[in-house]
């Protein structure tokens, strides 16, 4: 059984197992993936895709977050985990973690990951899913957006680039570790919004549409995050445009990755909860051996 590192170049050939929403991330700078071929080398029998976090941050441990894992059987998973453990030493990951839905493969994953040193538990997901129909229930008002709130499509590439640099200088990145390298066309141009004053970008609300059509809120940023009114104007613009453009059944993913987003989501959708998922955590040793 051979383990192959997956990349943009071999994605078509080796990435058949990957769900579309995972596959579209292959090639991003901090995303890695490995798949195993079966003994005949005909097709993949399993794979793990993960993302490195905090790579450039002096005071935080580098984390490898597994965003997808699959194996036809336990042996495949064990081989994958062994290869994974070696791979993550490239970026000196100190911690591995994951959050996986409780689907039919969950029990096998739980068994193998647990045997490999992960501490497993079930908890509420950080992700909340809402629909465009849910957005219509929000009181967005009819007031026109201020002149400084614009759609992303109205930005030049230079403005976008400079705005992202400002995001980095303020130690922000939203859900995107590689925000500095992501291209403008990763985001939905009509519903993503930005704050532009004197031709300078001072805020973003960036939305990505996944391969399966889920809208993901990737970054909410303002130069002055304490200015609630402008942040709300960004959100209001994006929500209004989303309602106009997408069907009521369109799903929207809101990841509650920090306290601010947690509070905001709770305020907007107090009745929504994350589904129960399986979470795992493991501290890695320097030599790649789990603690």
């Amino acid at each position, binding site marked *: 059984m051979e383990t192959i590192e997956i990349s943009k170049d071999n994605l078509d050939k080796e990435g058949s197992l990957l769900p579309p929403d995972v596959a579209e991330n292959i090639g991003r700078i901090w995303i890695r993936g490995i798949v195993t071929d079966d003994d005949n080398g005909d097709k993949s029998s399993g794979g793990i895709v993960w993302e490195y976090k905090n790579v*450039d*941050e*002096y005071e935080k441990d580098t984390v490898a977050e597994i965003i997808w894992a699959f194996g036809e059987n336990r042996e495949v998973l064990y081989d994958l985990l062994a290869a994974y453990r070696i791979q993550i030493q490239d970026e000196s990951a100190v911690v591995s973690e994951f959050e996986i839905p409780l689907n039919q493969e969950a029990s096998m994953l739980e068994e193998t990951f647990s045997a490999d040193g992960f501490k497993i538990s079930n908890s509420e997901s950080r992700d909340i899913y809402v629909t465009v129909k849910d957005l219509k229930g929000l009181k967005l008002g009819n007031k026109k957006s*201020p002149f*400084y709130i614009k759609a992303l499509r109205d930005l030049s590439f*230079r*403005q976008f*680039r*400079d705005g992202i*640099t*400002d995001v*980095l*200088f*303020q*130690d922000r990145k939203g859900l995107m570790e590689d925000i*500095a390298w992501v291209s403008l066309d990763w985001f939905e141009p009509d519903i993503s919004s930005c*704050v532009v*004053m*004197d*031709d*300078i970008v*001072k805020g973003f609300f960036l939305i990505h549409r996944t391969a399966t059509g889920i809208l993901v809120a990737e970054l909410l940023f303002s*130069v*002055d995050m304490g*200015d609630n*009114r*402008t942040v709300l104007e960004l959100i209001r613009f994006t929500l209004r445009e989303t309602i106009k453009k997408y069907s009521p059944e369109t799903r929207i993913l809101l990841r509650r990755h920090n306290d601010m987003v947690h509070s905001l989501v709770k305020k907007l959708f107090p009745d929504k909860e994350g589904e129960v998922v399986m979470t795992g955590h493991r501290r890695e040793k320097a030599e790649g051996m789990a603690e």
Partner: protein
Amino acid sequence: MITLTWAFDIFAILLSVASFFLNMRQAKAFKREDDLFGKLCLISVAIAAFKIIEDTITPGLNVEELKYGSIISGYFYDVFDLGLLFIWILFVDFMIYRSEDHLRIIKPDILKILLPVTAVETFLAAAALYGTLLLDMKRTVPLMIWVIVSYYILTMIKAILLIISIKKLSDYRRWRKGPVMFRGMPFYIPIFWGFLITFILAYRIDLNPLATGIGIFLLYLSMNAERRYIDSETGFFSKEYLSLLSGTYKNKNYEGGLGILVSTDGDTKVIIDILKKSKPTELDIIRISKGEFFLVGVRKPRSVLEIFKKNMNETAKEEGINLSVKYDLYGKGENAEELFKRLV
């Protein structure tokens, strides 16, 4: 018993004293030797004190005051001057920040409505003066009533417009982080205090046009006093600010920080425009020489600085100018000036 006039005098004194101490605190922060504005505030205190003494000796209304209309009319005439004051402040603010958006926000209210209102008020003032100087008392009183009522209405309109303009500006100002000179307080605030004191004094000594002139002169002096730290062409900090950063005034935010040296031998207007638009909010720009700029800020990962350098080079290439970008983090115990010398 404290009358309205007394209250104004006391208010003027308190404002003068507050302005004086504010200015002294700022002067101390920058170790300035020439605190002209502070001295002028002290003079304002002295004048206000003198007026209180004068009022004590000659209290109440007299015939001369009636000749020029009632006290209420006079009060609203000073509010008219206050309107001019705000207009000046807003335009000065624009001059400081050099922001077209800023002007766009205030322009519709100020230029389209407020100035014509002010022009009408000026006409009314002239009419009032004509009435009191040339007509007899029988014809003067109805004219004055008409003038006073008009003043009320116009002043209310102006007050509302001023409030709207200031509100819009305060919304806008959230996005601007211009040179914050005095420990986080925009430096026009002492200028505003100076204006306010001057106009309140003007009310007391009935010299409104002169008060306007004094106020503008104070503004000019204050701006000159601060000019050494601001590059007048760009609005960036001047080279003197680098010495300040490295000297007795230590901005703790920059300890263990970063420095980025951007220099060009090409068109400086182009590089200035690039810097104004591309500068991250967290960084301050110091203009060292015509085509040399030093950006300082809090420590960031080198990868972030590398991205900034790459973006600057790409933008310069698009604009057709040569650019050199060097960066580094402060060494141990190093200050801004030492890092700058290392990068040159």
